[in-house]
């Protein structure tokens, strides 16, 4: 649905993105991750047909974003980062205007506007001035505007930034519901959001793609060793020494005491083998009480930080 091929953009002498390549399949939600200034917004602006690239190609729904910009813009719903809307217009008036410029025939306008205001929860706000709306409602109007002509592709630049937790959940739900009929690219700072909503993640840093994969695979790939969380009722020094002696255990750390009063440990074990059963057995054989044992997974935050720091270290 979206193909990006060696896309490069310079702002004067400043390079924003360099040789960016990736593709998004129909019906997929692609998360766009990266530190500030990584080139997320620039990429989205190019894909939405707002801005031409310096070199490279990109196509949306089979149309070139530069040569056939108008066709691309007909097929893309775009929500820019700060949700720029005309403050002096009413919600209804604004959506009416967007419907007109997006070329929705007069007979269908009322129905389509009704459908998006319903989906985005701004039905009751149609007569309100946009300037008087809260950030959350403005975000919804922005989303409604992007959805209005039912575009096959949606490009959402930080759609949940500045919202309260309940609104975030609602907006995420709206985006998830779009998955079936739309291809979505969304950028975000909030990493759990990616694992919750996105099928695949592109991590970019310094204008270059450093990883593309599903959130699960990314975590799997970046993990250097497995980790196990353990809570054992038994003499600390002996437990520590015994665990350290197990084959395949790389490191044991004592992390203090659980609310129940038992000491807790974190084990780093080799990546090749799941050692949970062995560890459990070892503890029980010594006559200690095994209170809890669970695997610790890297969070996407850790993956992200690891990848980005590796990348930066590579450049230095």
């Amino acid at each position: 649905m979206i193909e990006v091929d060696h896309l490069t953009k310079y702002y004067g002498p400043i390079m924003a993105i360099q040789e960016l390549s990736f593709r998004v399949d129909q019906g997929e939600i692609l998360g766009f991750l990266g530190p500030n200034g990584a080139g997320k917004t620039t990429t989205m602006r190019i894909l939405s047909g707002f801005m031409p690239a310096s070199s490279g190609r990109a196509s949306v729904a089979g149309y070139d974003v530069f040569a056939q910009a108008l066709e691309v813009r007909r097929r893309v719903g775009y929500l820019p980062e700060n949700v720029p809307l005309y403050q002096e217009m009413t919600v209804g008036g604004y959506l009416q205007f967007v419907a007109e410029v997006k070329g929705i025939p007069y007979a269908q306008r009322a129905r389509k506007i009704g459908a998006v205001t319903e989906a985005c929860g701004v039905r009751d706000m149609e007569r309100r001035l946009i300037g008087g709306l809260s950030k959350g409602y403005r975000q919804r109007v922005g989303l409604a505007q992007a959805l209005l002509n039912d575009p096959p592709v949606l490009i959402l630049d930080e759609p949940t930034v500045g919202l309260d937790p309940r609104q975030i959940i609602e907006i995420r739900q709206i985006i998830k519901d779009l998955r079936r009929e739309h291809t979505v690219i969304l950028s975000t700072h909030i990493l759990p959001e990616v694992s919750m909503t996105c099928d695949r993640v592109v991590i970019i840093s310094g204008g270059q793609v450093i990883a593309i994969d599903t959130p699960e695979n990314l975590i799997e790939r970046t993990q250097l060793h497995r980790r196990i969380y353990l809570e054992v009722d038994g003499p600390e020094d002996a437990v520590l020494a015994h665990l350290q002696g197990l084959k395949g255990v790389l490191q044991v750390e004592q992390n203090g005491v659980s609310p129940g009063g038992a000491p807790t440990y974190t084990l780093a074990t080799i990546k090749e083998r799941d050692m949970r059963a062995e560890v459990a057995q070892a503890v029980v054989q010594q006559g200690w009480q095994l209170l809890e044992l669970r695997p610790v997974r890297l969070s996407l935050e850790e993956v992200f930080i690891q990848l980005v720091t590796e990348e930066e270290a590579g450049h230095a």
Partner: protein
Amino acid sequence: MRSLYAVFKREVKAYFTQPIAYVMMGGLLLVVGFLYYLSFRWFLGVSFDAMRNPMFARDLDMGAMVVGSTIGTLGVVSVFTLPLLTMRLWAEEKRSGTLELLLTFPLRDSEVVLGKFLASLAVYVVLLLLTGLYPLIAVLVGGRLDPGPILSGYLGTLLLGATLLALGFLCSTWTANQIVACALAWAGFLFFWLIGHAADFAGGQLGPILRHLSLSEHHEHFVKGVVETQDIAYFILFTLFCLFLTLRSIESTRWRG
């Protein structure tokens, strides 16, 4: 075409939902109305004198002396008030970021440019129609007016307005600050309005060139009742050139982001 109309409609509505158009129209009508009133009173005085001198009375022409001079003033007043109409058009969209969204709608840049320009022109036309009330009052109280010079004066003022609006429109694309856009437009308007005065000192070959470039010289011909192709061509070409540069300026905004 339909999209152009949508942009046009939105801009016209924006003028009238914000106070700017009312303030500008009110101010302009007040100034022009006051000047009209003064010249009318002066004309009454002259007319009373003329009753004692029939020879003199024959030369009295209310059309030229009252209405004509008012239309002439309308030009100057336009130079001072029209930046208020154009300063918003691009600068505000740039400041609030709405330009980014507007330029990702399925619209041609030319449709956006023309839609916006025609909206400001429409407001100006409404304004001119309102000033048409003054000569109308003169006719209603029994004055006899020659419609020729009045119509040509209005045609000239409309063309002048279109040119000023296009120039101010261009200035608005260069900045995200409305005040700066307004100041740039004023500077440009005054430059082209007054450049003819410099002709007297420039002499030689430069003088006529400067005179031909001057907005006020061309406008004056219309006010005197002379409709010449070269004046019409001057205003239209000036307008089209500014619109073309505006289009280019918007394209460059796209590249720079």
